[in-house]
């Protein structure tokens, strides 16, 4: 382990860490809510298909929904209980999605029966990929991308390095930190599955320097002879982003619009890795996840193992909230999404529940909004080397098409660095989200129109683009 590695990426920002409240608190089990809601779409891709009926009794860990297609994963019952109904539930995206409502049996021991194990040493890559899909594993860092889909090697692609992402650069969040400290064995149990599935020959675990204890624990726990190294990285946001981590650890740049595979790397979150290491040898599926519950608006801060589907209202009531709690978001404060309804359940992607009170005057909230003064702070902050200032001006004028064509809007992954540093308090990220949504919509409309037309007309695509331009 090199203690003070200077490996990092260019640009980025240094937000305050704010992890001290929870980083020393061990993971605790969270109680079961009176009703658990398992949304069928907790991942990117098609929703899973329920395989239970209303009124059916389920056992904890039982598969209750099967994947629909390759970009979809299975769902498992978070508790033993009875399926009350299958209906609409609000989700963090602001749309209603279908979910399975389960009333847990209050008296149940909530034990999980083991299933068919999958052995890392003997299984072939296809089996591992299938097992991971069946276990319902998605990226637990927050993105929600089905992990097995990453591991499936397309024709002609190869991977030499597996990167395990322990950067956890978001303020407040300490789940990865605790997992690395408490479940290093799971991490090292998970790594062989991933290496075997992808054919990677070495593994690097990247840990930010504010988690030196975790790095030390991992380093000490590396199995003898395993091609695994632990690297500490300078503390910088957004080091935990896939592209940034690859740049920091390998010095390679993922091509614009491409994937880590294009530079022979694959990147998984450390908690995801630990989860694979915990589930696969026992043939289980995900029924709970570690969540940091913190922020100034929360009374009993801590790291909890929360059953999937626990409604936020229950989480907050149980953890206790301050009187003047006004904002709650899932994930960290940089990229986490604001919660509009407390009926939203905890999903596989929820790495944190952060509550702010009305006293936490985020400068974005209260101060004046100024026009862009072209100070260039955002240009210096953007880890993707975009020009957020220009993009912001274009967005205000509704020039969405130019944003994507001339200024690489689609490379933006909404890390929030630009908005964080902006002295004019311009909601750059939100502008970009609107622009992307409008462009996506225009594209879909164009495609729909294309399909609907009997004779394909070349004029249709420009038309949709013109539309996108007109949206302001």
């Amino acid at each position, binding site marked *: 382990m090199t203690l003070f590695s200077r490996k990092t990426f260019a640009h980025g920002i240094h937000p305050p860490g704010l992890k001290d409240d929870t980083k020393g608190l061990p993971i605790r089990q969270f109680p079961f809510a009176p009703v658990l809601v398992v949304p069928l779409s907790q991942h990117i891709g098609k929703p899973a298909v329920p395989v239970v009926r209303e009124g059916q009794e389920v056992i904890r860990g039982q598969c209750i929904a099967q994947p629909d297609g390759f970009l979809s994963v299975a769902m498992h019952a978070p508790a033993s209980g009875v399926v009350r109904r299958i209906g609409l539930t609000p989700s963090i995206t602001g749309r209603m999605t279908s979910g399975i409502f389960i009333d847990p049996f209050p008296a149940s021991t909530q034990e999980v029966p083991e299933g068919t194990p999958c052995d890392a040493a003997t299984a072939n890559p296809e089996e591992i990929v299938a097992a991971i899909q069946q276990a319902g594993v998605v990226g637990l860092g927050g993105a929600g991308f089905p992990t097995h889909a990453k591991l499936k090697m397309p024709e002609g692609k190869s991977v030499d390095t597996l990167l395990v992402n322990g950067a956890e650069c978001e303020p407040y969040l300490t789940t990865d930190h605790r997992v690395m400290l408490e479940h290093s064995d799971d991490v090292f149990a998970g790594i062989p599955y991933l290496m075997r599935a992808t054919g990677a020959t070495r593994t690097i675990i990247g840990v930010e320097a504010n988690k030196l204890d975790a790095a030390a624990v991992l380093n000490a726990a590396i199995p003898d002879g395993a091609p695994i190294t632990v690297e500490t990285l300078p503390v910088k946001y957004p080091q935990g982003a896939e592209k940034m981590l690859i740049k920091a650890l390998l010095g390679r740049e993922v091509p614009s619009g491409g994937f880590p595979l294009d530079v022979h790397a694959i990147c998984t979150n450390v908690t995801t890795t630990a989860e694979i290491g915990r589930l696969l040898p026992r043939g289980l599926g995900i029924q709970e996840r570690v969540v940091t519950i913190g922020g100034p608006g929360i009374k009993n801060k801590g790291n909890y193992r929360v059953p999937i589907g626990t409604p936020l209202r229950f989480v907050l009531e149980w953890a206790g909230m301050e009187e003047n709690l006004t904002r709650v978001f899932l994930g960290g404060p940089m990229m986490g999404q604001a919660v509009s309804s407390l009926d939203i359940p905890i999903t596989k992607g929820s790495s944190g529940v952060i509550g702010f009170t009305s006293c936490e005057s985020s400068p974005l909230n209260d101060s004046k909004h100024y*026009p862009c003064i072209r100070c260039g702070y955002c240009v210096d902050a953007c880890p993707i080397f975009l020009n957020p200032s220009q993009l912001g*001006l*274009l967005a*205000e*004028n509704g*020039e969405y098409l130019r944003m994507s064509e001339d200024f690489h809007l689609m490379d933006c992954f909404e890390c929030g660095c630009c908005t964080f540093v902006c002295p004019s308090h311009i909601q750059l990220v939100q502008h970009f989200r609107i622009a992307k949504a409008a462009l996506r919509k225009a594209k879909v409309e164009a495609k729909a129109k294309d399909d609907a037309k009997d004779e394909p007309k070349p004029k249709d695509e420009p038309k949709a683009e013109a539309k996108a331009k007109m949206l302001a």
Partner: protein
Amino acid sequence: MNSDPLWAIFLNACLINNFVLAYFLGICPFLGVSGKLATATRMGGAVTFVMVVSSMSAFGINSLLLMIDAPYLKLISFIAVIASTVQLVEMFIKKMSPALFRALGIFLPLITTNCAILGLALFQTNKGYGLLQSFVYALGAGAGFTLALVLMAGLREKLELAKTPDIVKGTVITLVLAGLLSVCFMGFAGLSN
């Protein structure tokens, strides 16, 4: 005969007495085509090219007129020659590069009635420049025109996204910018000393 050194002629035409910013020549295309940088660059190139061509033909015509001692025909023959030269160039571009033609659009015929072109021919004969001097003068004037046009286009592209008051948008702001650029160019005064 004029004995100004070539570099002084170039600097003079390009910076000190910039056609657009000091002589108000070629304002129409300056206001019209300076909206987009890409177009402005091409327009600048086109004007420079036409300037050189018409400067050369004006020099020829002028020598001819001096030979037959008919200075009173200067203006009418200049305009005729320049107009037809430009029209030929226009047809040529339309034939050779429809894309370029489309980009410059209606402004190609505008070059015909672009005072900068005729002004160049007139000034050059008034100053009594020789062939080489005329050539350099045309190059300088074209470069100056392009420079002003490109600077303007850059500024206007930037301002397009600005919250400029409605009544100022368009011609007014362009004129103000031209005035400010003109003030800036005053810094070059006296350069050729």
